[in-house]
């Protein structure tokens, strides 16, 4: 179609290309700083090509205290949160998707309502509750809280994915006398692996990037995930060693970028996400 171009259409095309490139460039500048500063021995706050390319920033920050323990903490928090969320969401999505029950409607409306609540607004009362129940610095406590905040959207997405799994096979299992749990784990779950992976990655990436929740609820430095230690690093040395800060940020961002690429290339993630949004 695009080759049967009239002159006006060609002009339109050129203008769109130009405007797009300009927007793309302004989106690129802050990102470019991050990448170049990480390889610069004398990085400043301004975007510039490094005079001396170096990997020193990386070798300086790639130590157990600086990077590996915080990253491990991030893996524990995000992995724990994503596993719990996915298991609980699959369970909850099953009756919502398969049975016509009186609780469905209020439950689903409650879930949708929950997706809209500003979680950051809750951090002050959540902190008080965690103090009252002696859960400050409790990693399981933080994992459960993050799982609860991810649950509404996870259940919603999971139910949408489950709705698209045909019911015929389950009926066969039912007639053979399989229990609800057996049907779910043996028949439904294997059929919706891509959907489950999308939800898992969605939740994992969300908690990986979560700064505010662990910042408020985990006070011991040895328990804090990378998001929080990066902030502490910025407060302590940030004004001096931007190169190291950028290097640390890149190391911390790579898993998330990789998971995003995997989701969108292998699982068709962005369209799945848009599908979840469109409802």
């Amino acid at each position, binding site marked *: 179609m695009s080759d049967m171009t009239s002159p006006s259409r060609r002009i339109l095309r050129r203008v769109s290309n130009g405007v797009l490139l300009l927007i793309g460039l302004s989106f690129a500048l802050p990102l470019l700083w991050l990448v170049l500063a990480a390889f610069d021995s004398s990085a400043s706050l301004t975007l510039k090509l490094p005079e001396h390319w170096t990997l020193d920033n990386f070798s300086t920050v790639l130590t157990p205290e600086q990077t590996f323990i915080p990253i491990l903490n991030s893996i524990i928090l995000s992995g724990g949160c994503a596993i719990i969320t996915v298991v609980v969401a699959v369970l909850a999505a099953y009756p919502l998707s398969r049975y016509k029950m009186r609780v469905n409607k209020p439950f689903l409306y409650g879930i949708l309502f929950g997706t809209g609540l500003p979680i950051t607004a809750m951090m002050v009362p959540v902190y*008080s509750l965690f103090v009252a129940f002696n859960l400050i610095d409790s990693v399981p406590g933080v994992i459960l809280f993050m799982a609860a905040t991810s649950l509404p959207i996870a259940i919603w997405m999971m139910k949408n994915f489950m709705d698209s799994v045909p*019911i015929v096979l389950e009926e066969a299992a039912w007639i053979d006398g399989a229990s609800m749990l057996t049907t779910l784990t043996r028949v439904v779950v294997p059929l919706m692996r891509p959907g489950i992976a999308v939800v898992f990655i969605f939740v994992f990436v969300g908690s990986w990037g979560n700064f505010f929740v662990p910042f408020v609820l985990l006070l011991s430095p040895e328990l804090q995930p990378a998001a929080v230690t990066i902030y502490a690093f910025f407060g302590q040395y940030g004004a001096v060693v931007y190169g190291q800060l950028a290097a640390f940020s890149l190391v911390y961002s790579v898993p998330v970028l990789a998971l995003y690429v995997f989701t969108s290339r292998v699982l068709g993630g962005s369209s799945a996400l848009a599908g979840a949004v469109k409802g």
Partner: protein
Amino acid sequence: MSPSQLLVTRPRGRTVRPRASGFGRSALRSTPLVPALILLALFLLAPIVSSFYGSFTDSALTGGAAQGSTFIGLKNYAKLFSNPDFYKSIWLTILFLVGSAIVGQNVLGLGLALLMQTSNRIIRSVVGTLVVSSWVLPEIVAAFAAYAFFHNKGTLNAMLGSVGITGPDWLYALPMIAIILANVWRGTAFSMLVYTAALSDVPQDVNESAEMDGAGGVKRLVYITLPIIRQTISTNLMLTTLQTLSAFTIIYVMTGGGPGTNSSTLPVLAYQEAFKFSQLGLGTAIATILLLIGAVFSVIYIRALKPGVD
């Protein structure tokens, strides 16, 4: 036909499961909901309830009131409503919502989606990747990148300097502009993806026949494309508003709510009152108000969406 109907109307078969009827059956069927309900009740509902309750007490993190808290009625709210910072914060929050979510992300996101329809494929994918990258990055990293960009000695002022303009110290002189632009930079990808998906559903032939009839690009956009995707627009407006309402990290890292409280939107002010000034009751009152605002938006959003719940 729903699964339960299928099961009920099936006359033969060894077992028509589950056999229990009425209350027992629906109780059995809803058991898988229990873990979710427990988790949501303990970690989502309880904080909300305690937020409402806590906003009527004098609880504090340090000092005498830290031990036990007493019920003080509406005093926190009275204190809040007599605090000029609170009104300023509401105004800043509205400014942030309108500038960043309603205008910035939605207009730019729709604009990008439209431009990408008529652009070169390579340019489209490069620009798309760049826009999505700033969205996929962890928020704290994006916040640092934005901090460096808008810093007095950052990239933006260096660029302005190279054409002879002395840029202002964005983070101090114009903190709201800086955080609005930063949040647009960070959040537009979401709107772009949603609008790209919506535009791909707009039937091509409608547009083409309008073009035959001599309708120009702008006319086609206003009279054809926008009405067709209006459902998506209202949904996306609500979603971006809700996301932006709870933005904390990007503001906290870039300006810390400062200078003073010049960029303290409500989430940042709640944090400052509770943790910086140890006014837990006041912070909780702000949190409660924010939750109420979020709840109102959420209800409007659900009504606009009219999800296929039934």
